[in-house]
């Protein structure tokens, strides 16, 4: 897959940079060009918003049959996190056994290698989470 596809999302993936609508104040991850609440009024009025990266586990699974590029990581914990700012985000929880994770567990963002496209392909980096 082309490198640009991953490159153009680096700021969001590396820094948890989403968007904030300056009209209604809602924040969004991933970033949006237009606020789905304010529609056209928000055009040109969205600003970058840096999420702190702290939140709680809304639900999770332990993946045994992995996604492409994740074979070496099984079994891994995949969770939906409710960020402190209110938005939800999907990511792995690392650095702990699955038995330590529950719905409601508090987590924080860490920067890690996500996956690799085989031995000679590109490596993707981005956010994961660990228990606080």
């Amino acid at each position, binding site marked *: 897959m082309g490198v640009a596809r*991953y490159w153009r*999302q680096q700021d969001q993936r590396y820094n948890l940079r989403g968007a904030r609508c300056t009209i209604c104040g809602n924040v969004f991850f*991933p970033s949006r060009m237009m606020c789905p609440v304010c529609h056209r009024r928000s055009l040109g009025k969205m600003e970058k918003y840096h999420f702190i990266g702290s939140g709680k586990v*809304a*639900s*999770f*699974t*332990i*993946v*045994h*049959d*992995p*996604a*492409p590029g*994740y074979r070496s*990581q099984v*079994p*891994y914990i*995949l*969770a*939906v996190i409710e960020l402190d700012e209110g*938005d*939800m*985000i*999907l*990511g*792995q929880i690392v650095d702990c056994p*699955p038995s330590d994770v529950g*719905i409601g567990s508090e987590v924080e963002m860490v920067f890690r290698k*996500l*996956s690799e496209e085989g031995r000679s392909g590109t490596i*993707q980096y*981005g956010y994961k989470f660990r228990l606080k």
Partner: protein
Amino acid sequence: MRKLAREVAVIGIGQTKFGEHWDLSFRELGIRAGIEAILDAGIDSKRIDALFIGNMSAGLFLDQEHIASMIAEEVGLTANQIPATRVEAADASGALAFRQGLLDIASGLHDVVVVGGAEKMSDVTSDVAAGFIAAGADQAWEALFGATLPGLYAIMARRHMKEYGTTVEQLAAVSVKNHRHGKMNPFAQFQSEITVETVLKAPRVAEPLGLFDCAPVSDGAAALVLCEMELAREICPCPVKIAGTGQGSDALAITNRPSLTELRATKKASERAYERAGYSPKDIDVAEVHDSYTIGEIMAIEDLGFFEKGDGGPATVRNDTTFGGIIPVNTSGGLKARGHPLGATGIAQINEIVLQLRGKADRRQVKDARVGLAHSVGGTGGTAVVNILEVV
């Protein structure tokens, strides 16, 4: 709600057995289902005005796009260059193609339309197939972060367990019931019964879901013939009327939806279909719902209004969703046992409902079935389609 300009009926159905068809190509699967539907309708193929095909991803599975033209030619419908259109919404593609065929006739544009669905999945390994199936979820913000389709459903399942006390045994009961039903369907991929223990002891895919909580990788095709109602009464001894249709969309990624335990697209699609048909959930005698994962059936029978939210699991264990229960669900075996060739599924569901309403479902016939519902979901719920059919 405005009435459709014209009423539409199903006058012919056909399908291949679902399963691993090493010996059959995509084209051959499509032809077999299509020819059978046209023969069942008993019409001359010259009367067919248009073709709609539901297919999720021939592009990924077979490196072949532009399949509507390909199938139209194979089934001999290009002599008069009739319009042939492919419709895509992940594994709701078949149901959506059906809806497009319905709207095509209802609008007055055409009188007789063939609608098909087909998928050839076994030409790639199951690992590769799993990656392609995940293309129905959000590639940039889910799959790239390690999400698989069963993983996303597992996340919904665990939240459902937390909020409503749903158990893994209740999830397993869906699979056990659908295998029991599938045993009575000669077109089903799996025709053997399993036990709760089989499901619970199977290898884990994404906890709490195991292999037997997941629909299989399948090849297969299904087709049907739609006809304007007045004409249908003239040429068909047993037309089945399409009473209502509804479609809903929601965010592609589960993180962009307010709840992890319901599919808003399903709720809205069914509300629209019920309103158009003038029926309520209580009026439905038999239903085919989207059980690509066992939690999917539990959420579906709740979101469609058959049971209270949270009662889907207990209802399944109470045998409310099998023969003799409140509403028999997935009499065909569902996606789990009939098989799930993505684009073909929505059409196969309608075929089962038509069989039931014709009273021709043999050993799995639901007694006095007069109104049936079919429900399809694309991916994790970005699209849902609900169609209601009734005996004329």
